[in-house]
């Protein structure tokens, strides 16, 4: 399977099953509509006849030879022989955990998937230290031979339960040696309660930190509101700058959400860069289409166009030595994850679980509150491995829409929670997310291709 597209004046061909990315001329681009395996030794006459209206026969012949060479090298029209590896998608050790230390929030963001903190459960709760300890023990005990354990402090707003966060970090560290494991603690915060002491602790103990802010003040404050209805931008921006600066701008993200209100979201990315951040994520809201801020299929053309604009902004910035990472355009075409990981996807419900303040276990933070996906409770010592086994099998070859999709090795079947909540089933692709994901991939590959083209041009000079 190949996927070819034109973007930014470049003709790009992705060979899906080898991961090969090729920059091709117009002739090759047209030829690929007219040839496919099995190939003949010489270019078929009918192909020459068809293309000779636009191209010289000698060029057509040499182009055909190049296509055949790449096919023989296994990097064009390569076969899909991955289904046999899907059998490796079995129940695995639990290595990552989202700890909802605080099911309450000091903001009332309009679009919050956690229903402004309480996950729609109608109760605002704190996790106590004992429950947190049991969660860490659960991870230590269920992680098999995995040495690196990821534990994300999440909410609600985790800084509202700061003492428990600190005590759990201390507890986790105290158990590492005994188990021969290492906790990678991370935290996601809205910044409202950040102070020097918390910043220093986070920077000492957390291997990554995510700071939630949507971009420009007018955009942020329209949806990220305090309980009294006022926006939070002025309170958090300087704190986030200090936090990032204190950790030498390493291992962090500023992370925003874009909605129908800011379809010009590239401006928000640029704003965050202009404010000094270089690790930036601004992501589409996923919400009930009935909500006024929700993005729907009607918005796709505008979203696509804005992603293209952002890709060009990034290339222009790069040329001026102003580099920043945009999370959804980050792509490693050579040293990325292995194909087995790409088949399996995020690992929710299998390698990764979320724990609520009451100790309930869910496949991930986005499943919290959906009773049918409650996997057990750490206080009661229950853990439903049937659900774990079900999630172990949520690989791309069990997702009908995904196995035929050119983007399958980059999104790995999408978000199981979005599939369940918005498409009705963890195995059914959420179409809107697919379309947005595919566009982002095209842009991300284009950025790599544009840089390669520039290098090639320099080399030929």
């Amino acid at each position: 399977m190949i996927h070819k597209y034109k973007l930014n004046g470049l003709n790009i061909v992705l060979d899906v099953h080898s991961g090969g990315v090729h920059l091709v001329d117009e002739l090759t681009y047209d030829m690929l509509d007219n040839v496919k395996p099995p190939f003949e030794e010489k270019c078929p006459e009918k192909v020459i006849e068809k293309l000779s209206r636009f191209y010289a026969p000698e060029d057509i012949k040499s182009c055909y030879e190049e296509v055949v060479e790449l096919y023989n090298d296994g990097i064009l029209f390569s076969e899909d022989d991955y289904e046999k590896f899907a059998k490796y998608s079995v129940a695995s050790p639990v290595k990552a955990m989202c700890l909802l230390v605080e099911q309450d929030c000091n903001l009332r963001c309009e679009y919050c998937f956690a229903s402004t903190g309480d996950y729609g459960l109608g109760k605002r709760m704190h996790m106590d230290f004992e429950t947190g300890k049991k969660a860490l023990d659960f991870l230590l005990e269920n992680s098999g031979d995995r040495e690196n354990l990821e534990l994300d402090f999440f909410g609600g707003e985790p800084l509202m339960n700061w003492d428990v966060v600190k005590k759990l970090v201390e507890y986790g560290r105290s158990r590492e040696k005994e188990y021969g494991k290492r906790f990678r603690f991370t935290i996601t915060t809205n910044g409202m309660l950040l102070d020097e002491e918390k910043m220093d602790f986070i920077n000492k103990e957390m291997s990554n930190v995510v700071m939630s802010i949507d971009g420009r003040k007018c955009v942020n404050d329209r949806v990220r509101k305090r309980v009294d209805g006022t926006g939070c931008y002025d309170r958090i921006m300087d704190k986030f700058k200090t936090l990032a600066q204190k950790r030498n701008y390493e291992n962090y993200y500023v992370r925003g959400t874009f909605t129908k209100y800011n379809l010009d979201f590239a401006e928000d990315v640029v704003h965050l860069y202009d404010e000094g951040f270089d690790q930036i994520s601004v992501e589409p809201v996923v919400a009930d289409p009935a909500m006024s801020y929700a993005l729907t299929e009607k918005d796709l053309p505008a979203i696509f166009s804005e992603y293209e604009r952002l890709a060009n902004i990034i290339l222009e910035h790069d040329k001026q030595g102003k580099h920043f990472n945009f999370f959804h355009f980050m792509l490693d075409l050579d040293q990325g994850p292995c194909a087995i990981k790409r088949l399996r996807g995020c690992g929710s419900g299998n390698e990764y679980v979320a724990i609520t303040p009451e100790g309930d276990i869910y496949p991930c933070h986005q499943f919290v509150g959906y009773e049918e996906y409650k996997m057990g409770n750490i206080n009661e010592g229950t853990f439903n491995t049937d659900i774990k086994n079900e999630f172990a099998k949520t690989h791309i070859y069990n997702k009908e829409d995904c196995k035929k999709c050119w983007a399958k090795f980059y999104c790995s079947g999408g978000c199981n929670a979005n599939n369940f909540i918005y498409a009705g089933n963890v195995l059914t692709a959420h179409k809107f997310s697919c379309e947005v994901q595919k566009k982002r991939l095209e842009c991300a590959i284009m950025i790599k291709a544009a840089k390669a083209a520039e290098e090639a041009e320099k080399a030929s000079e």
Partner: protein
Amino acid sequence: MKHIITINKANLKKTAAKGGCGKCQASCQSACKTSCTVANQKCEK
């Protein structure tokens, strides 16, 4: 090649044979999880 430039190693199939150790970071499509998307993730082997 005159018509085609291949810009990467295209080694996905090789990674299948030796992959699946599970040492890599958990991945999420949202940065709110402080993790990687699958596409930008590094192999930790």
